[in-house]
């Protein structure tokens, strides 16, 4: 019994831990200081509220258990969970094991390299056998995840991923270090076990094997432990510069988000947390219509975040940010729920900050508010002007419900500003929002109804209106429920296309379906609700040509046509136009279907 408590081989590990600790604390402190005023207020207000506990729980659930990934694919979830949760348990259980074994107290590295330090102390302590076996089980758990990760590298399809991410050199070195850690741990423990007979069932088994083939000597064991320590140290040193930073960042991000922090149009410290919380899993690549239909695989969320994060690639970020339809499919798919579209828009805004187009807004002065006291304001939107059947249907519905309304943009139409904002023209969009707000507030109306999901998202998220805002599908649903509008059920079989801005954008999935079920037979399609496909003709991407838009559209149309409908229904003038250009099946807005079925 020498009671050894230190060996120089632990130094690389210690150096790694120290570096990681100092570096992450410095980084996180800087980012938290970078939160803007609103974000700080939100945190201060909510940290001592009921939101605190759920925030902690959500952080644990996602950071350790990877719940959302598991929901996407069981194997993929298992892989992430075994590595994260398994490693976590190895550390925690290892700590208890050391506590039992060294009752007089111990240094923390003695828990990490327990099997090395154990034989020099008294091996007979309470639950020794049980703890050793438990540690082996946990190691098997982690190793099984590692095997899956290697398997995924070769063949990712069974893990629910058609494509995996291209990683940078640094990421690959870090991954190599990570992959070495657990096999080296097993080997080191087995080599020590070959000499002293400690460890659990697996460690001892492998140790006996090593003894049999004659490599059971202290030098071999020590070099294994050294390598293990180097692998750990290397991984910790690389962590802050690679995707593995997500392991800790994710937990903070989820915590802040649960407290109610959101991202705005400017890059803040919170954005930095989002950037680093991306594990580059590449789930955003699979669902992206740019990948699925056009084979473009360089602009998805994972690559955009990488290019913003990496100083050398920042020039790239601007062009990558432009090439996106902003359909939010990746936002729905992202296991960490990073707000990819908002971050993309930040880049667009930064790249266009110097463009001045203020001269063109003189016409706003000539538009006068109208007194619409106790009426509903109807805002068709620019796109609805190109699909007059929708606004005509809405006018009939208002009349049938006996609702007085003011068609605000019938004559002089002002854009809601969102198309400009999505393209990064922040100041210009602000001008339009100011004028529209003045008109709507000045009208003293009771409610705003719009036919265009883009305007709807803008009015609900970018405006601060004192009156309720509804998309016309919600409004019609309300009229039907209140009995102010009576409709008949016809024998049409309808496939409904969820517009991106209405569905994923604003979470309006049920109201359109309720209205359609009241008037027609609504069919199910393969990819609907959060997974609905973009029609390709939205205004998010200025770089696509008509041919590419058509390919994206065709995929969405095929998804709808697969259930063999008589009519395609949608709730967005742009989607309507996209599909109307395509096929011989009639394409109707929900408002048109309702207007035709009014009793």
């Amino acid at each position, binding site marked *: 019994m020498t009671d050894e408590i230190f060996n120089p081989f632990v130094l690389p590990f210690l150096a790694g831990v120290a570096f990681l600790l100092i570096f992450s604390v410095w980084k996180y402190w800087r980012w938290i200081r970078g939160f803007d005023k609103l974000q700080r207020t939100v945190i201060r207000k909510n940290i001592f509220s009921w939101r605190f506990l759920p925030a902690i729980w959500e952080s644990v659930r996602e950071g350790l258990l990877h719940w959302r990934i598991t929901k996407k694919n069981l194997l993929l979830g298992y892989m992430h969970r075994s590595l994260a949760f398994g490693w976590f348990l190895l550390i925690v259980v290892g700590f208890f094991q050391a506590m039992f074994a060294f009752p007089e107290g111990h240094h923390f590295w003695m828990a990490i390299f327990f099997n090395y330090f154990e034989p020099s102390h008294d091996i007979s302590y309470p639950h020794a056998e049980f703890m050793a076996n438990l540690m082996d089980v946990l190691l098997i758990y982690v190793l099984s995840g590692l095997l899956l990760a290697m398997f995924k590298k070769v063949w990712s399809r069974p893990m629910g991923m058609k494509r995996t991410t291209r990683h940078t050199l640094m990421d690959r070195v870090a991954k190599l270090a990570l992959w070495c850690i657990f096999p080296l741990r097993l080997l080191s423990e087995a080599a020590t076990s070959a000499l002293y007979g400690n460890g659990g069932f697996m460690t001892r088994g492998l140790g006996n094997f090593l003894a049999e083939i004659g490599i059971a000597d202290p030098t071999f064991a020590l070099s294994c432990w050294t390598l293990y320590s180097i692998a750990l140290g290397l991984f910790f040193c690389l962590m802050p510069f690679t995707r593995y930073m997500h392991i800790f960042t994710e937990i903070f991000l989820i915590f802040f988000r649960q407290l109610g922090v959101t991202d705005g149009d400017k890059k803040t410290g919170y954005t930095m947390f989002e950037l680093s919380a991306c594990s580059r899993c590449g789930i955003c690549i699979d669902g992206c219509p740019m990948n699925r239909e056009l084979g473009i695989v360089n602009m998805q969320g994972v690559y955009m975040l990488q290019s913003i994060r990496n100083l050398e690639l920042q020039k790239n970020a601007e062009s990558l940010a432009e090439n996106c339809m902003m359909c939010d499919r990746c936002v729905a798919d992202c296991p960490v729920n990073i707000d990819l579209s908002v971050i993309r828009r930040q880049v667009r805004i930064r790249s266009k900050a110097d463009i001045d187009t203020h001269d063109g807004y003189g016409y706003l002065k000539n538009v006068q508010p109208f007194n619409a006291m106790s009426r509903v304001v109807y805002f068709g939107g620019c796109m609805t*002007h*190109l*699909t*007059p*059947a929708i606004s*005509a249907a809405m006018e009939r519905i208002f009349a049938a419900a006996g609702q007085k309304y003011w068609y605000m943009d*019938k004559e002089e139409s002002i854009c809601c500003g969102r198309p400009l904002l999505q393209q990064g023209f922040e100041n210009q969009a602000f001008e339009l929002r100011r004028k529209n707000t003045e008109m709507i507030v000045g009208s003293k109306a009771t409610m705003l109804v719009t036919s265009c999901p883009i305007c709807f998202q803008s009015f609900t998220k970018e405006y601060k209106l004192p009156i309720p805002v509804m998309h016309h599908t919600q409004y019609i649903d309300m009229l039907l429920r209140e009995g102010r509008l009576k409709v008949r059920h016809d024998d049409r079989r309808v496939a409904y296309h969820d517009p991106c801005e209405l569905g994923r954008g604003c979470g309006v999935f049920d109201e359109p379906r309720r209205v359609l079920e009241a008037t027609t037979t609504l069919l199910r399609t393969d990819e609907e609700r959060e997974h609905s496909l973009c029609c390709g003709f939205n205004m998010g991407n200025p770089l696509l040509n*008509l041919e590419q838009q058509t390919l994206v559209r065709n995929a969405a149309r095929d998804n709808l046509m697969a259930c063999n409908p008589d009519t395609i229904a949608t709730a967005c003038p742009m989607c*309507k*136009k996209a599909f*109307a*250009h395509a096929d011989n099946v009639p394409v109707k807005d929900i408002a048109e279907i309702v207007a035709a079925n009014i009793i």
Partner: protein
Amino acid sequence: MKSISIIGAGPAGIEAATVLASQGITVHLFERTASPMKNVADKAFLFPNFAPATDIVEAMGKKLLNNNIVQHLDTDIVAIARQDGGWKLSDARGESHYTDIVIMATGYEPFDAHRKEELGYGIYSGVITSLEMEKMIRYQRVENSMGERPKRVVFLQCVGSRDEKSGNHYCSKVCCVTAVKQAIELKRQLPDVDAYIFYMDLRMWGQHFEELYRSSQQEYGVRFVRGRISEASGTFDGRVQIKAEDTLMGLPLKLTTDLLVLMVGMEASQGTRRLGSACGICGEYGFAQSVDPHLRDNFTAADGVFVCGACKRPMSINDVVNDGRSAALAVLECLGH
């Protein structure tokens, strides 16, 4: 003796039948509708010389009196298939007709203006197509949606032609001059009406077209605005308000009009698409494809199938008639005459 069938009794089909019949050859002429010359029958006057369309219909009708022409009216040929070295034609009633040689003269269809929803066709009654305008002129009943004499009429060119979004990149060739012709006829009937023509560019390619264009401005005061109309909306008094850009002035403009006339382009007819793809000669935009546009424009890759007229591409009536003759000559050449 080889049997010959012509599908489509428009100007092209009738002209081809006439030439062959005059050589003592029996031809079977199939027509989907109950009477021949359906597309021309509703026209008022034909450019460039304002010949009454009825004259042409009558003259073509007389040609059909030839005994060698066997007419099959109301017989919609829906399928064509190779059989025993010849072709089997099946009509909508399920009857089959066997023939050695086929001349496809299945023609065009006007573009469905409902597809340009932003122009409000089918939504606002003041929005009509050029075909409806032609009828109004022919029966001298040019009225707005309230049944009154219009004060202003706006023609819009290139509806469904040269339009990426509706999928037709090609020029329909006849609409430019048709709008000029209709505007002149309109001014002759209602001299105090304001007539506007919105265009991208005016293609006055034929004989006398340029003169027609000039006189429409100088003698009739028709106004030309370069720019497309982006959207149309209804006004409370049943008129139509249009938004457009005058691209020569560089200014957006709004205009209220009694009638908005959409100059709809030509698309391959259903028959052209169906039969063309059945015998493997379906070309761009569903039009039938000839072997060579210069030297063998009536021959096709399908053995014994000839094409003529607007089933190949947009054509004016005089071109179509000539092409019918040319197809007949191609058939005679093939028969060894």
